[in-house]
């Protein structure tokens, strides 16, 4: 263990770090080029991650988890960066930090047995269905409806930008079960009419659920190795037992669920920043111009010294938020600030790293060009920077 990290990580965390690193180097990195090019990662890799216990780090042993503290999750997120596939890493974190935590928190024992347990094993893949073509951050305006008819919900609507969308076995689906967004009178209560349904994409005989369809696989600016899809629901019937938590409480569940997702986004942004910095500095020390190494030019020295300092600051802010969240101390402010600072940082840094690579930085075969595109999502997903600043306005009592 590096002695400077002793305040955060124990020897066991470091043994785990080595194990994840080896896994990443042997099972993921060798396929990186192919998977990025084909824009596809085979489903079996989830099973391999599950076998290593990586998908159930914080969950109780009862459902196949390891019951570890949050720092193990941090180690996992940091080491996953070494696979150099931000897209696939996102697929994995949708499973571990965006979907399964709500099931663990709110699910019935039967729901956990059916969904959480195989998700931890990597046998089932989960997706979150919140964003719709008409809106993302404005979740109160969700239009997809679920009407209760007898012992079933009948779902109509569509979702977009859904990570793991084309191959999910279950979608943690945000639907409207009450309120209305068209009636002006009731709209002020629109957020009170949302619910979560654990939508099984297949029926019990293994066929695609009637009325559910996966639209085109979306082409994106980056994150090519991630599976991102459009989904549509047309008179799609689901047994009522798949309601998660209480009806019409969905808005609160969504808001609570953001914290873990934003925190892990911050951790990965810092890890990506370190990787970008290391790659660029290696290049600066190698590349010759005007008879000297680029690293011999003070302009690059100062710029990357500045970035080193900013990465360190962002890292500390993030670790502080991790520490508070790990100790279950309210920390919406710290998590929001960490998400804002780290995701903005990695984008500005990526810009400079492309610049440092010159023409090669613009070539697709260089990692820096891909990472530049991949990290662009980070200030948008899991709550845009503008939303983060709105939350910070409230949390700091800035408006008096």
């Amino acid at each position, binding site marked *: *263990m*590096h*002695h400077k990290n002793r305040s955060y990580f124990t*020897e*066991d965390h*470091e*043994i*785990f770090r*080595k*194990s994840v690193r*080896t*896994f990443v180097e*042997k099972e993921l990195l060798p396929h990186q080029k192919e998977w990025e090019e084909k824009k596809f990662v085979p489903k079996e890799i989830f099973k391999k991650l599950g*076998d*290593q*216990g*990586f998908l*159930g*780090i914080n969950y109780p042993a009862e459902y196949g988890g*390891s*019951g*570890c503290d949050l720092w*193990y999750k941090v180690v996992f997120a940091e080491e996953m960066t070494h696979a150099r596939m931000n897209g696939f890493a996102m697929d994995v974190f949708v499973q571990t930090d965006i979907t399964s935590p709500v099931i663990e928190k709110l699910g019935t024992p039967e729901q956990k047995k059916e969904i959480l347990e195989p998700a931890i094993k990597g046998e089932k893949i989960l997706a979150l269905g919140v964003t719709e073509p008409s809106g993302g951050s404005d979740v109160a305006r969700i239009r997809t409806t679920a009407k209760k008819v007898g012992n079933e919900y009948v779902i109509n609507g569509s979702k977009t930008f859904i990570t793991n969308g084309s191959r999910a076995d279950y979608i943690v689906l945000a639907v409207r079960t009450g309120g209305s967004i068209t009636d002006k009178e009731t709209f002020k209560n629109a957020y009170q009419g949302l619910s979560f349904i654990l939508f099984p994409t297949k029926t019990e005989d293994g066929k695609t659920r009637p009325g559910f369809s996966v639209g085109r696989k979306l082409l994106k600016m980056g994150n090519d190795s991630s599976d991102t899809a459009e989904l549509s629901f047309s008179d799609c019937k689901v047994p009522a037992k798949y309601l998660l938590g209480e009806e019409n409480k969905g808005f609160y569940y969504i808001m609570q669920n953001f914290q873990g997702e934003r925190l892990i986004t911050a951790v990965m942004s810092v890890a990506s920043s370190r990787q970008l910095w290391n790659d660029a500095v290696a290049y600066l020390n190698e590349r010759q111009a005007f008879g000297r190494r680029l690293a011999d030019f003070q302009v690059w020295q100062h710029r990357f010294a500045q970035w080193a300092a900013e990465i360190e600051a962002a890292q500390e802010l993030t670790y502080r938020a991790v520490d508070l969240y790990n100790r279950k101390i309210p920390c919406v402010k710290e998590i929001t600030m960490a998400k804002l600072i780290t995701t903005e940082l990695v984008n500005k840094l990526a810009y400079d790293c492309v610049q440092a690579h010159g023409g090669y930085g613009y070539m697709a075969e260089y990692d820096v060009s891909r990472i530049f595109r991949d990290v662009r999502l980070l200030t948008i997903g899991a709550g845009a920077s503008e939303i983060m600043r709105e939350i910070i306005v409230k949390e700091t009592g800035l408006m008096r």
Partner: protein
Amino acid sequence: MNIAVLIKQVPDTETKIKIKPDQSGIEEGDIKFIVNPYDEFAIEEAIKTKEKIPGATTFVVSIGPERAGEAIRTALAMGIDKGIHIVNNEPALDSYLTAKVLHGVLKERNISVIFSGKQAIDFDHGQLTQMLADMLDWPCVMITESFQLKEDKSGAKLVRRLGGGAKEIYEIAFPFLVGCEKGLNTPRYASLPGIMKAKTKPVEKLLVSNYLEGQSAFVSYKNYELPPERMAGKKLEGEPQIQAQSLVKLLREESKVI
């Protein structure tokens, strides 16, 4: 049946080694330590062998300072049952003294087979296993690239790599020692449940000083220096004939080897 594995904690291969200012050793502050890569093959082979022998117990033995505990727990996380940490606070053990201490610790433990890496990547001596074999008066096969347990589990068939693609094949009855080579197997990596389970596995702590029997090392280290930096190469240009001529000239006049 008891199966032992000898492991050593060594600096990570990616670590940049720095020498202490007084040249008495290497700076450990910034070093990341790992389990010697050849020892990982030994750990894996021990676990695989145990899986084939009902009731067998595996244990891992390491000599080193407190930090070597991490290497032991890594082996336990991979699936080894127990650990023995022989704590060494007096630095300089040579191969002979290391073998001596291990002999003292292991001779009475009713062991059938001892797996070790063929060498440790820090000092690269590659002689500990043979010395220990001599002290135990057991057979020993080094540079083992294949290990097959016999059906009646009385011993094993081993393949030892020789130069030029030749191989030696041994059939040996227990007890014996095996020096493991790359390619013997693919070491598993510790799973998270494995790491959690390792926390409750027993690690016996012993002191090197109790096993020295008044002996001291034959080898002592006077000082450490980094190897000289490699000189830049020379590129020969022109037609093949010209290149050959200048090569001969350089070999004769500059390096004086012909």
